[in-house]
Structures are given as structure tokens and as C-alpha cells.
């Protein structure tokens, strides 16, 4: 299963990977095309995302800034990229309300991408002057150095709304507890499973795993993007079918008199 260790389609493991990969892409692409053609799926409510507008509005009313943290990993991490796409939506809303948006980042490349995306959002909303590159600034690559800054900045600037969207490790609770202490509305989204419990405990809304990746498509409201979400659901249904089939096979196997020829994954040889 090592990439490139035994390349080529002859290897059954590679074959399986190829089939699953192709099926996944095909489902998502087909739903996207169907949505473009007019079959736009109705997406269920994701409460955390409905609250974005409310949070930005509240910050504007109170005259306090909004804090957006796109995680502490670099652009090679899909969560960071997803966080940046959510940032562009949040920035659009903030520009409309003319609210102050602070984006401290912990990687130089992320700073670059965040600046581009916030500037684009400002232009789209017709508020090009709202964009201020100095508000999107690099702090440090060090996880806890960054957390030290964020904790101190929260205690001093008292943001009214905090967004944590990206890849987080132990600093998640430092951010969320300090945000809670200053009474901010907090919306978090991550696929880092170990940190989800802390966001769930300390934030007002948390986007869990796949919901987080769906966030930017959901917020964009564009038909083709919503179509990809339906595609994900179709793949999920296929996975469930395969799983049920596998379970039935394994169960009938258990009844067969002779012991299974090869040990299942769960049994240590």
C-alpha cells in the first residue's frame, strides 16, 4: 500500500484503490453536473453556518472586532484550505457590515492565501477600501507561541465573535476557553477528531469533520458546489451498501464449518 512501492494496475490493492477513487470522483462530478443542469439538491440546515451572519452582525453592533483563526497548519493541509475558503465567506459578510476582521496566522503561506482571499471578498462585496493587509498578519510558526499571542490579544481586544476554522491541536482549548471567558460568540470547525470534544464543550457551534469541509460549499450557495455535497451523500450510501454486504459475507463465513482461510483484519494472527 506504499505509494509507488508496487505501482501499476496489476497489484490488487492498487486496483481496489483505483476503483474506489474513480467511483468517488464520478459520483461527485455527476452530481455537480446534474446540479448545474438544474437539479439543485436541498441541503439540510447546518446550525453553525446559519449563525455566521448573526455573529458578524453582533460584533458590528457592539463595535468590537471579529477574530478568525484558520488553524495552525500550512497550506498542504486540506483543513487549512477549507478554512481559507470559509474565511472568504466570513470576510464578505464582515465587509458588508463594515466590521473589523482580525486574522492572525501561524504560517507565511497561509498569510499569503488569506490576504488574497479577503481582498477578493472585499472586491466582490464592492468594498475594496475595507481590506487592510496589516490585519492579516503572521505571528509565529510555533504552536504555543501563537496560542500565547491569541490568548493575550483576546483578553485585550475582546473580540465579539471568534471563528476557529482549520486544523487545530492542543491550542484549541486555549483559544476556546479564553474566547468563552470574554463572552464571545464562538463558531469552530475542524476535522481534527482529537480536538472536537473541546470545541463542542467551549464553543457555541461546532462543525464536525465532514460538515466543516461542506461549509464553504454551503455558504457559497452555488448550485454546482451544493451538487458536490449530494455526491458525497451518494458515496456514503454506496459505502453503507458495501459495508452491509461485507458484514453479511463475514457472518455467513462465521457459520461455515472450517475456519476462515485468512484472518480478518480484527484478529491478530
Amino acid at each position, binding site marked *: *500500500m*506504499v505509494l509507488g*512501492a508496487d505501482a501499476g494496475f496489476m497489484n490488487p490493492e492498487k486496483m481496489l484503490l483505483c476503483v474506489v477513487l474513480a467511483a468517488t470522483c464520478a459520483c461527485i462530478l455527476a452530481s455537480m453536473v446534474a446540479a448545474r443542469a438544474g437539479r439543485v439538491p436541498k441541503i439540510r440546515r447546518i446550525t453553525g453556518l446559519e449563525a455566521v451572519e448573526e455573529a458578524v452582525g453582533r460584533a458590528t453592533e457592539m463595535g468590537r472586532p471579529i477574530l478568525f483563526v484558520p488553524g495552525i497548519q500550512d497550506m498542504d493541509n486540506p483543513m487549512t484550505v477549507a478554512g481559507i475558503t470559509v474565511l472568504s465567506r466570513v470576510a464578505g459578510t464582515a465587509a458588508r457590515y463594515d466590521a473589523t476582521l482580525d486574522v492572525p496566522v501561524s504560517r507565511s503561506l497561509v498569510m499569503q492565501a488569506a490576504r488574497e482571499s479577503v481582498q477578493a471578498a472585499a472586491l466582490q462585496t464592492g468594498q475594496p477600501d475595507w481590506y487592510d493587509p496589516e490585519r492579516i498578519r503572521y505571528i509565529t510558526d510555533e504552536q504555543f507561541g501563537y496560542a500565547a499571542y491569541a490568548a493575550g490579544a483576546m483578553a485585550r481586544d475582546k473580540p465579539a465573535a471568534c471563528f476557529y476554522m482549520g486544523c487545530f491541536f492542543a491550542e484549541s482549548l486555549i483559544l476556546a476557553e479564553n474566547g468563552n471567558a470574554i463572552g464571545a460568540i464562538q463558531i469552530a470547525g475542524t476535522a481534527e477528531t*482529537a480536538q472536537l470534544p473541546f470545541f463542542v464543550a467551549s464553543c457555541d457551534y461546532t462543525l464536525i469533520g465532514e460538515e466543516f469541509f461542506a461549509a464553504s460549499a454551503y455558504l457559497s450557495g452555488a448550485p454546482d458546489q451544493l451538487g458536490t455535497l449530494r455526491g458525497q451523500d451518494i458515496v456514503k450510501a454506496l459505502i453503507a451498501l458495501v459495508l452491509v454486504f461485507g458484514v453479511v459475507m463475514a457472518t455467513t463465513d462465521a457459520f461455515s464449518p472450517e475456519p476462515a482461510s485468512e484472518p480478518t483484519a480484527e484478529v*491478530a494472527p
Partner: protein
Amino acid sequence: MSGGLDRRWIYLGMMLAVALPILWNGMTGKTFPESPTPPSQACFDAIEALPEGSRVLVSFDYDPASEGELAPMATSFMRHLMHKRLKPVIIALWPLGPTKGEETISNVIKADFPDRVSGRDFVNLGFQTGNEGVLKVIGTDFRKQFPVDRSGMPVDRLPIMEGITKVGDFSLVITISAGYPGSKEWVQYVSSANPGLVLLAGVTGVQASQIYSYYPGQLRGMLAAIKGAAEYEALVSAVVDGDGVTPPRYTEARRRMAPQLFGHLVLIGLIVAGNAVYFSQRGRKAVAR
């Protein structure tokens, strides 16, 4: 809804619950007895099952931030390996891992097994950048990633590395890991690609819940957080020291269990208190209505 409690009182309670047992422990030297759970016992058994002289790959995938939980595991693993006359080959996927490996070597091997020679009985091959990329390469060509040991000696000249060309040539692989890259990557890229290879992991509490889904399939055994370290430490002490006295540096994990216990009790007390406040407030509201 906070029940009117300033959170600083909570902090004070937690501080005392952790600090006082450390002082008590330091003065009396007492620890709680441990009974091993299956994943820890499995680690112990996997090492016990190896014949003398087997080569074991030990990866130090952590840095000082997680030392509190993981260094006692590293110490116990090293002590067990040395006691069984096994030969550890140390690598690291974290830049500061080799230093931690060196510390473990000097605390265990140099202090208690001075007859063991670097390059023959153990070796530290240092750190390589590339995260899971390193794991992919050592699956087919170990020496490509780790051509020299930490002092610059080519691996080809080390007796301990004789006949080892890929990761599958080791009898056992141990990863002591604090996050990414770590146990998950070892499972994904090494264990899956080498079905016969036995993989053990020592992980932090945060990782434990994720890594559990790989045990006992792709992971033969695992030490979960300081509790796992304490259980394994007790098992190793029992086999190495017998009824004799265990030197204090080999009781670190068990010593840490005392602050652990009181910290947990404070938390449980807080959860109970929080619910008491919640229900009493709810009760009052119901009456008012």
C-alpha cells in the same frame, strides 16, 4: 449559568490537586499499585516473545512538550529491550526526537547496561525530514533514508544493521508518538504495507482515542497515556527487579499517577458540582413558573 463561581477557584483547586501529591510523592516515594489492561499487557508480551538478539526499530516521534507522558514509556521500553538483550535501532520523525533518544540511551543503557556498545547492541540513526514520506521510503529501502548514524558513521559499517534493507526486516517496530507524524502514519504506511510486522505504539492521551481503532488489528499493543506507561513500567519492573527495589528513575510513570488521581477527582467533583448547580437552578425556575 456559571453558578456564580469565579473560574479562578477552579484553577486553584486543580493546582492544589496536582501540586500536593507531587510533594507528598517526592517525600514518601510511594506509588499506587497497577494492574495492566490488555493493550499494555500486549506490548509487554510482544517484546517478551522475541528471541535474544532480535533487532527492534524504535521511533522517537515526540519533543519536549510531550515528555511528561512519553519519556517514561521510552525509558521502560528501553529497559525492557536491554533486559531481554534485544537490539534497538533508534530513528525519529520529529526533529527533536534524536535528542530524546540520546537521553533515554544515557539514562538506561549507559547507566545500567554499560557493556552494550553503540553500533553493535544499539544505535541512534537520528532524524529525517519528510514525515510520512520517510515511512514510504523505508518500506522498500531503509538505508536510503538513514544512510549514517548520528555521529556520521555509515550504516553499512554498523554490525547491528547487517542484513537490514527495509523496515520489514526488523522483528518489531515501536513508535513513541505525540501527534503528526506518529502512530497513525506508522499504521497507515508501515503496518498496512507489511502485514506480518508487529507494531507497538506508545501514545499521548489525546491520540489514544483515535489510535484505539487500530488495536488489536494493525497495532499489536499500545500504551495509552501516562496510565499505560505506568502499567507497562510495573510489568517491566516486576520482571527486571523481581522483589528487589526499583531505582527511582524507573518509577516515573507510577509517580505521576498520584497527581493524576487527584486531578481526576477534582474534575469529577467539578462535573458533579456543575450538575448540582444546574439542577437546583432548574428546580427553582420550575417553582417560579
